[in-house]
């Protein structure tokens, strides 16, 4: 059986910036695949490219881009918009970008069902109440009548999730869904997503910059740097044996209670993600990498370093344990 979402050699450029440079990944039914990396490394562009929502000037190219077995590369806008919010749903970091401030929660939630399914209003309201309850909202009736700005950030994100589920999607793409939230609310939202996935068999592509989140929710992880996947593995394998210098660097930055002594420095990666022009060769991480050598400016091998564990780096075994 083919994967729910199957991406092969996805590329996106914006004029002089190569934002995504040949990404391949799959999301299976019932699986959470996490795409992790620092800000500016191309995570959001990847998800927007899949949804057909790239900003003007963005050029997409892929060897394969299929959803539930259908090639969606040549879908026109009407076909894509029929998919979006129906079989394929998306939630963003800032819920206000996708909630309309002028309409109540109730009218926005029911509109989704009416547009995609032609569901009668009363039935759509029932479904909205059911889903708001499902995402842990204790007074769904009250919330339906409220406007987005009357809700806290955590409630808004719950509403977004409920709205994304209105049409029973098969795939959910979540781009940093908890980055703007308190850690307490973040834990609640992530737990909710995990539960929903178990109950509904959703495939989830979860985008985050936080390896703590990845460890707790992902089945599979792709570590992204400057538009490429530099390391990819099943979650347990990646955290047991992280091989790529960038993955190692990211891991060392995460403060862990009880782990780091006060006044001992945290691990860190110097510098920032560079902007990469089209036609760039070699490892984009080499200016920040403490293992860099002359060969890193040449063509890099992508090789297997463990069970279903791939890495893009000149080091044959990656960073030693």
């Amino acid at each position, binding site marked *: 059986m083919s994967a729910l979402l199957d991406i092969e050699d996805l590329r996106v450029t914006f004029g002089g910036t190569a934002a995504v440079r040949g990404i391949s990944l799959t999301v299976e039914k019932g699986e959470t695949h996490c795409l992790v990396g*620092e*800000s500016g490394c191309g995570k959001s562009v990847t998800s927007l490219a899949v949804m057909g929502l790239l900003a003007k000037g963005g050029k997409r190219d892929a060897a394969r881009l299929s959803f539930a077995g259908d090639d969606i590369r040549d879908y026109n806008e009407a076909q894509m918009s029929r998919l979006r919010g129906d079989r394929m749903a998306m939630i963003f970091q800032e819920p206000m970008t996708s909630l309309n401030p002028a309409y109540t929660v109730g009218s926005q939630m029911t509109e989704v069902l009416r547009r995609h399914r032609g569901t009668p209003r009363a039935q759509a309201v029932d479904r909205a109440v059911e889903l708001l309850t499902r995402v*842990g*909202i*204790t007074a769904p009736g009250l919330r339906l009548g409220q406007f987005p700005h009357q809700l*806290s*950030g*955590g*409630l808004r994100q*719950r509403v977004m999730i409920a709205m994304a589920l209105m049409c029973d999607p098969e795939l959910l793409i979540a781009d940093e869904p908890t980055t703007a939230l*308190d*850690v*307490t*609310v*973040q*834990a*609640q939202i*992530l*737990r909710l997503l*995990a539960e929903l996935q178990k109950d509904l068999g959703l495939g989830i592509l979860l985008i985050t*910059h*936080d*390896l*703590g*989140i*990845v*460890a*707790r*929710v992902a089945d599979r992880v792709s570590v992204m740097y400057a538009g490429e996947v530099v390391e990819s593995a099943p*979650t*347990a394998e*990646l*955290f*047991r044996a992280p091989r790529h210098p960038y993955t190692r*660097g*990211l*891991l*060392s*930055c*995460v*403060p*862990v*209670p*009880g*782990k*780091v002594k*006060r*006044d001992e*420095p*945290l*691990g*860190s*990666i*110097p510098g*920032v993600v560079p902007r990469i022009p089209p036609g760039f060769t070699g490892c984009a991480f080499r200016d920040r990498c403490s293992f860099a050598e002359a060969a890193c400016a040449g063509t890099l091998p992508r090789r297997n370093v463990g069970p279903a564990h791939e890495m893009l780096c000149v080091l044959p075994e990656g960073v030693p344990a």
Partner: protein
Amino acid sequence: MSTPAIEVRGLRREFRASQGLFAPPRRVIAVDDVSFSVPAGSVLGVVGESGCGKTTLARMILGLMEPSAGEVLVDGKRLDGMDRRARARLIQPVFQDPFSSLNPRRRVRDIIAMPLVAQGNVTTLEIDRRVAESLERVGLSTEQGTRFPSQLSGGQRQRVAIARALVLRPRIVVCDEPTSALDVSVQAQILNLLAELRRDLGLTYLFISHNLAVVEHVASEVAVMYLGRIVERRESEALFRDPRHPYTRALLDSVLTPEPGLGVPDVGLGDIMPDPANIPPGCRFHPRGPACFAPCAATAPRITSLEDGLVECHLAG
């Protein structure tokens, strides 16, 4: 005993937020009778969810906002009535958002020089020297000093904010979520820089964050804030080893460490966010506490002293 760097007594701040023409204004109690002191050279971490009063507390300690009641002493001197320039030499802020807290139309070196210029009677030569010293301290180059904030990354902008805070060589720096808008990798760079500066310059920090894991790394003592009150204040090591308040435990449970297989914990707390315009009777935490029992709804708990701090909860009493 030496004079504490910061001492606050019975600090309180209310706001009246208008709700439109006909509704009565909402009375928001943002900080509610808070007292503590911070010994010179130490770091007090302050944690709590959005809206619990952290920034309001910071602004009062910086003298940027009048308390409704109570007083603030910085280096033993009362803030009210202190000359603004004298205050600026003593205590300086670093704020969360490196995008909005720097003037976009000024060059980095002019931004850093501002507090010095505001002092008056400092020569241009001295200003240049001190700005260069500050830039170097935070790891920025002379060339970066000639740029505008928009030409810098988020982490570099936060370095500018730190350089500006240091240029008057203050004793105390109040950091309000200095890394919350940054990537984990850049957060680590900034936390390491702040730790190094504290050691080298003997600074005292009030360090605010909503993430306990971040606070643990810098703070010698941690205050947990809930709806305007400090519900637990402990030596850092003790707080992480043995949290006593259920809210502190929930905060600690919320930290997702990079350990696979553990899943996402159930932190409890429900979906209702605390509202400082509507503080519950009894213990203000009780509607969200899974383990809270009958007395919690009826009576506010008293402060219980512990060997290594204090806690305000019936369960700990």
